[in-house]
């Protein structure tokens, strides 16, 4: 198994991605360890989504190499072990909660008793068991977001990608989501999450600060605060942005 040579589930090695003349990502290198939550933080257009899409295999890096679970991406072989929650809560509105889960589970080969067991577990996890037979169109925004997470978890992925999973939901549910993530980490799931919210960033094990496609820093929240000498993330982020300096002109 290639994983034995490098146990880290995600290795990003000097990766760049260009769309025409625009550098969406520029010389990004990072590793994510098994069972940790790695946060990608940065303003809109900083390259968070581009990086997540490359990690998912939805595109090929222009430069450098990405290895996910030991496979050079893009590689369909790892698809079965990856869960993905998109920015929009990508669901089928006509289908019930259970049918959405059954469909996405079916894509990963789940059926019969195994599917039923996973459906029950996942519904309990996101607290939607009592709405199992409701059409997705009748759910509230927060419930849809929870179902969207459940659909990403139905096949027990080892790696979970969450692209701004808490956009537009209330603070209480955001808090609940981060509790889910902590439980998943405890079960050995590695999570890569992008977010705008700097208070959420504090709950990640490690953070990557992205700006204009460059990784300004990647470290634990505490270390980032210590290095910058700032107590809150907004200021810490600005510190790293100013330190990167030239990148501002480059990306603009």
């Amino acid at each position, binding site marked *: 198994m290639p994983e034995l040579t490098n146990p880290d589930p995600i290795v990003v090695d000097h990766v760049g991605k260009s769309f025409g003349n625009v550098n969406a990502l520029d010389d990004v290198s990072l590793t994510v360890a098994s069972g940790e939550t790695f946060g990608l933080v940065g303003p809109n257009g900083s390259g968070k989504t581009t990086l997540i899409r490359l990690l*998912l*295999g939805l595109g090929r890096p222009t430069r450098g190499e990405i290895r996910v679970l030991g496979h050079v991406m893009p590689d369909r072989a790892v698809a079965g072990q990856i869960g993905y929650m998109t920015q929009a809560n990508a669901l089928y*509105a*006509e*289908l019930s909660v259970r049918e959405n889960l059954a469909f996405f589970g079916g*894509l990963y080969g789940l059926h019969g008793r195994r599917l039923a067991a996973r459906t029950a577990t996942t519904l309990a996890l996101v607290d939607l068991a009592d709405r199992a037979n409701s059409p997705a169109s009748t759910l509230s925004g927060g419930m849809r977001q929870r179902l969207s997470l459940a*659909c990403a978890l139905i096949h027990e992925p080892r790696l979970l990608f969450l692209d701004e999973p808490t956009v537009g939901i209330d603070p209480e549910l955001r808090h609940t989501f981060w509790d889910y993530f902590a439980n998943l980490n405890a079960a050995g799931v590695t999570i890569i999450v992008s977010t705008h919210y700097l208070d959420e960033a504090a709950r990640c094990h490690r953070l990557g600060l992205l700006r204009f496609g460059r990784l300004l820093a990647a470290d634990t929240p505490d270390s980032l605060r210590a290095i910058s000498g700032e107590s809150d993330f907004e200021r810490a982020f600005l510190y790293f942005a100013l330190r990167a300096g030239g990148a501002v002109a480059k990306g603009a």
Partner: protein
Amino acid sequence: MPAFGYGLSMRRVANLTMRIIRQFTRDRRTIALLFLAPIVILTILNFVLNNSANQVTLGFVAPDGATGQVVTQELRAAVQGQQGLVLTTVVRDSVDATLRSGNVDGILIFPTDLSGVAATGTLRLTLDLEGSNPGAAKQLISISNLLAHALSTTPGAAPTAITTSISANYLYGGPQFTQTDALAPMLVGVFSFFFVFLLTSVAFLRERSQGTIERLMVSPLRRSELVLGYVCGFTIFALLQSIEVLVFVIGVLQVHYHGNIALLFLVTLALTIGGVNLGIFASAFARNELQVIQFIPLLLVPQILLGGLFFAVKSLPIVLHQLAYIMPLTYANFALQDIMLKGYGLGQIWPDLLFLVGFAVLMIALSAYSLRGERI
């Protein structure tokens, strides 16, 4: 798990097909559109095309003198109890004027004198038809034939052993006028192509706009499985619709039908697969539902207008004629009409079917190509 090709999973295809069927059956309005619209359109067309099928008026010009009175009586007796037929006498001099007045649908004209008929053994009748209503004209031709037959075997004014011949003249149009008979086979094709294209492109557009396509692309689902799942899901509905349309046109509208039902579905299947994939391909160029609707005048209306439904393809001006011959609906129309009306088999319609299969293959290639961008 049954698999072929490079690991194509039929279970995943079936999973996708089932999802499409579920989504569809939840959408009552779309189901109604799919299954009620063809019936409404067919019913309207049937009435428009054969609008006096309920009531036709046949005028007749009797021979002169006493023979004329006998013939008149015999004709009246022959049509006794015929539903929807009115028989009226017309004066020989006013035939043309009566026809133009629109009071009769046709006039059956006897010779002035039947005395020569006994000698020659033939009775020549003329049927002058108004012709603007093909349904009525057609009905009158068959009624006149029946009447002539009744005369020739009835002793009385005309001798027993005569042969009757009727020559029909049309004031407007002609016997080649399109009717429900000719239209129904084409509509089977038009309905399935139209709805399958529209519904697939909207369904696929939604996959994109709601972001589910990203989830599909990240999952182990292959592009081929995605396309196949869509084809199966929508083809099932298209075939159900075709069955419904056929039952309606044959059972209710009493359209003449001589064909091989299996062959008919084979043609519909080829057309539908082409339609589903054209829908997937087209949806890549639409950003919202309105833009999908914009494909209708662009891609569908020309095919419906030029494919033989309204005007015979052969009678089209040369440029349009050539255009018609690159359109799949034209070939579907030819094939379906030949199967249903002429009872043609695979031996005769294979060139049309081949074109439709070729179109389907091309569309599969294009739809697969349009999905390439989703996952590299």
